């Protein structure tokens, strides 16, 4: 049976059906492709706005829709979160605006396609920023379950709502994909924010901890005491040092690493015995908040010991008990205490020596005066004369001793003038020549052009003489050499401490250094440390005042003195003296001795009766008149009676009662007071210091010979000399 050929109509019908099938399949393929393109964007690392724009572009291009936007869910004018316009240049501003009519639910509950007219029921105004998008069909696709009510909106100016209706299913699926992605992005962002916050918190906390750690570490390292943290747990490593600071390490001579592994026992002085045990017992029995404090002797790594003040307190770190120990090195303090003691001793010796010298000077004045008078009364060639002269010589030597004692005490005669050190040394050595044995070579190594120093010439001579003779004596009978060396030098801020003579370090500045070195036998330490003490001597016949006088003089000159010596290695004395202030006035020349031309009436005020007597004897022997007062009060009284007749007053400064200073003050307050000459067993400078600026007419240092007194008395204006009262005159 032959099959009838299909009619044309039937074929056309089949073609039409196939065409529709084809179109349907093409649509399906396109939808799948669109979902693929959208899914691709989900994979891309896009921020929400970029993601929405990319998705809108893909929908618009694939579906041929000119405009798409994603609107937010809030307010009468839902915000446009992203938009795409096929015909709008990319660089143009997307100022699209949508204003909802009051009433309809926004966003709509389901996806829908609306004709332009229907759109008007929803939106009061629709402004898509690009002219030419005419009355539009609208597609609204809410993102289901999106918490913030997002909604896709598409506008097409060429198709009707019904044409767009078939797009709704695929657009809803796209919306689902986007919503899921946005939720994911929001979570990621939230997570990132949390991580960031956490990171910041961790960083802050870490910084704080580091800062705290650094702060405490700095504290720990910069405390001036050694700090040890010692395990105090009976069940732990009892006694083990857990932590130590650098100060502790340097104190004990260990490295930090070494200290950290040690037992605290190893730092104790070996064989400390019961005292240590008692201390340890107190430490290990410490209770919370208790502290022990004790001076202990500790041992360094090299075995040497040193005193510390140890303070221990119980602390707990995370519940674990430790003894926190502070160790303050007392070495310097102990040394300072020793120095202070020595200095106080020297000072009291000085006061003592000064006092003795003063009293001796008074006595010597009387002895010398009276002996002088007696001598003058002897006939030339009489046998008593030799004895008196010897007595006078012995008194002069005693006066030299008192001068040295005063020099040591810093209360010697003191006339300041600029001195050329080298010149003084050369002249002095010339004088010494005879006293230096032949086997001793004295070598001078003097730097030329030294600055001048300010000082008292005779005292300075005394220093040079004492040191050189000291060196010569150290050589004994053996041949050797004494070297005198001078150098210009300077002290900077820290070097003044190296000259521990005065109470204060030497100020920085220019100095002249003097060195007297001998190649003699040297001194052991126990001798060296005492040579400046007064009355300390190792020489038979020495009186122990030479070097102490040197020390007193150098101190008085604000200089420094040091000695280096060791047995067999000779001895070197070093002196530094400050360079002279340039404008020191030259010393005034001594007034010439005037001829005896007048008789004087002198009021003598002194608390020592033998002084009064000797002065009276001298004055009266020379034809003068002496009124004697045993105290300041008595002197003032006598002055009240005889003031007008007096030529001058000889006043002793050191007296009981109102004393010499007050007496002088009262005398000077009187309108008719004659010149007042002050006399003292102390030096003139000290007298001046006591007078605190009060003027005096002259100064007479005790002891003095009768010539000196007479020269002074007769230098004053007065009456003609009368005949002496007594038989013998001079």
């Amino acid at each position, binding site marked *: 049976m032959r099959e009838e050929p299909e009619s044309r109509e039937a074929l056309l019908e089949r073609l039409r059906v196939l065409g529709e099938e084809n179109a349907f399949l*093409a649509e399906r393929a*396109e939808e799948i*492709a669109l979902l*693929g*393109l959208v899914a691709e964007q989900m994979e891309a690392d896009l921020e929400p706005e970029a993601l929405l724009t990319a998705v809108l*572009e*893909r929908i618009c*291009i*694939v579906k*041929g829709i000119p405009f798409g936007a994603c609107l937010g869910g809030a307010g009468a004018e839902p915000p446009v979160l992203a938009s795409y316009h*096929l*015909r*709008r*240049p*990319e*660089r143009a501003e997307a100022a699209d605006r949508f204003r909802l009519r009051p009433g309809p639910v926004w966003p709509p509950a389901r996806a829908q396609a609306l004709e332009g007219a229907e759109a008007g029921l929803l939106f009061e105004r629709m402004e898509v920023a690009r002219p030419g998008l005419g009355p539009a069909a609208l597609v609204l696709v809410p993102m289901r379950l999106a918490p913030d009510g997002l909604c896709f909106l598409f506008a097409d100016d*060429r*198709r009707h709502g019904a044409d767009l209706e078939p797009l709704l299913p695929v657009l809803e699926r796209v919306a689902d994909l986007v919503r899921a992605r946005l939720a994911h992005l929001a979570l990621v962002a939230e997570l990132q924010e949390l991580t960031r916050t956490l990171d910041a918190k961790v960083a802050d906390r870490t910084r704080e901890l580091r800062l705290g750690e650094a702060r405490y570490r700095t504290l720990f390292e910069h405390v001036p005491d050694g700090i040890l943290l010692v395990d105090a747990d009976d069940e732990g490593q009892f006694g083990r040092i857990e932590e130590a600071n650098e100060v502790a390490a340097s104190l004990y001579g260990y490295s930090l690493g070494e200290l950290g592994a040690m037992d605290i026992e190893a730092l104790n002085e070996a064989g400390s015995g019961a005292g240590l045990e008692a201390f340890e017992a107190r430490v290990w029995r410490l209770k919370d908040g208790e502290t022990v404090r004790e001076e202990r002797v500790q041992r360094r790594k090299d075995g040497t010991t040193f005193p510390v003040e140890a303070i221990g307190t119980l602390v707990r770190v995370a519940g674990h008990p430790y003894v926190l120990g502070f160790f303050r090195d007392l070495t310097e303090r102990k040394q300072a205490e020793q120095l202070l003691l020595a200095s106080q001793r020297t000072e009291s010796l000085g006061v003592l020596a000064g006092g003795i010298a003063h009293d001796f000077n008074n006595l010597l004045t009387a002895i010398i005066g009276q002996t002088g008078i007696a001598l003058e009364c002897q006939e030339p060639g009489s046998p008593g004369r030799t004895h008196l002269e010897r007595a006078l010589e012995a008194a002069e030597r005693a006066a030299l001793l008192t001068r040295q004692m005063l020099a040591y005490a810093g209360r010697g005669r003191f006339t300041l003038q600029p001195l050329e050190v080298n010149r003084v040394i050369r002249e002095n050595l010339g004088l010494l020549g005879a006293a230096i044995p032949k086997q001793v070579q004295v070598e001078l190594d003097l730097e030329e052009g030294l600055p001048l120093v300010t000082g008292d010439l005779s005292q300075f001579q005394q220093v040079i003489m004492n040191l050189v003779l000291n060196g010569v004596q150290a050589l004994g009978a053996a041949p050797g050499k004494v070297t005198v060396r001078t150098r210009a030098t300077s002290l900077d801020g820290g070097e003044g401490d190296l000259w521990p003579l005065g109470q204060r370090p030497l100020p920085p500045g220019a100095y002249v250094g003097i060195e007297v070195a001998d190649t003699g036998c040297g001194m052991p330490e126990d001798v060296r440390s005492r040579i400046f003490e007064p009355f300390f001597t190792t020489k038979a016949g020495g009186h122990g005042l030479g070097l102490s006088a040197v020390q007193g003089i150098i101190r008085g000159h604000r200089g420094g003195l040091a000695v280096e010596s060791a047995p067999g290695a000779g001895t070197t004395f070093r002196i530094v003296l400050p360079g002279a202030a340039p404008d020191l006035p030259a010393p005034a020349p001594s007034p010439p001795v005037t001829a005896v031309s007048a008789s004087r009436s002198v009021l003598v005020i002194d608390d020592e009766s033998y002084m009064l007597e000797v002065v009276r004897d001298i004055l009266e022997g020379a034809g003068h008149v002496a009124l004697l007062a045993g105290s300041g009060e008595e002197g003032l009284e006598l002055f009240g009676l005889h003031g007008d007749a007096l030529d001058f007053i000889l006043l002793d400064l050191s007296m009981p009662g109102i004393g010499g200073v007050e007496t002088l003050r009262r005398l000077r307050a009187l309108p008719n007071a004659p010149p007042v000459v002050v006399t003292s067993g102390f030096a003139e400078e000290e007298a001046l210091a006591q007078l605190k600026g009060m003027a005096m007419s002259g100064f007479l240092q005790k002891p003095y010979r009768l010539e000196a007194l007479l020269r002074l008395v007769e230098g004053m204006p007065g009456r003609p000399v009368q005949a002496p009262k007594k038989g013998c005159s001079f």
Partner: protein
Amino acid sequence: MFQDPPQKLRIQGHDLAYHRFGQGPPLLLVHGITTYSFIWQELVPELARRHEVVAVDLLGCGASDLPLDESYGIRSQVARLEALTQALGWGPFAFVGHDIGGGITQRFAVDHPDRLTHAVVINGVAYDFWPVQPIIAMRTPIIRQLAMASLDLGAFRAIVKRGVFHRERVTDALMADFERPMATREGRKAFLHFAESLDNRDLTSITEGLRSTRVPFLIIRGMDDVYLSGEIARKLHREIPGSRLVEIPEAGHFIQVDQPGRLVRELEAFLA
């Protein structure tokens, strides 16, 4: 891509980019849709030996401006190219167009016959054998395909490769040249606007003009062009008096990629 950046001329308010080589009788090379001046890169060194060659980027393509409020249709492109060649100071010149550029060649020959010494249409559109616009914007199959391709690199690469007979000649560098305009949203908009601007009435309206043109025409067809029917070339040859038809085997739509040497030889022979 040519090594040097293109030169630009301001034509009718927008920049047109072009590459200019050699000296001799002027020769204008005009690309089609999905390409720009790079498509001529293999031919230019040879052609520039005897001609002053300008390879232009049409408005909306390559390095030229990409405005969306200007038509990229054939008639507007003809007007722009006439202004460009005037601005270049050219007298009569030879016009070579590929694909849509082939359509522009026909329209230029009809509108400005005195400006042309020769007209060459290579795998060109003509008559109504191509998208009919604007019936339903963007909904014709070819446009839908191009639209999808602008977003989907896989699809785009397939379109390119289907247009080449010797697919091994499509190097990564060459593919990158094809893809470049699709890399940005702006480029994609311009590309779609180009597609949307196409209107076959620009060519159906010059059917009579072609029948009476005195401009010498060479019509070249790649025998393996899957996009444009052989009937287009044959009808052009039938209808344009004195025209020459060359059909090249083993050549697809992008014949410049498949047979650059052969193409140069045919052009040199025609232009000689």
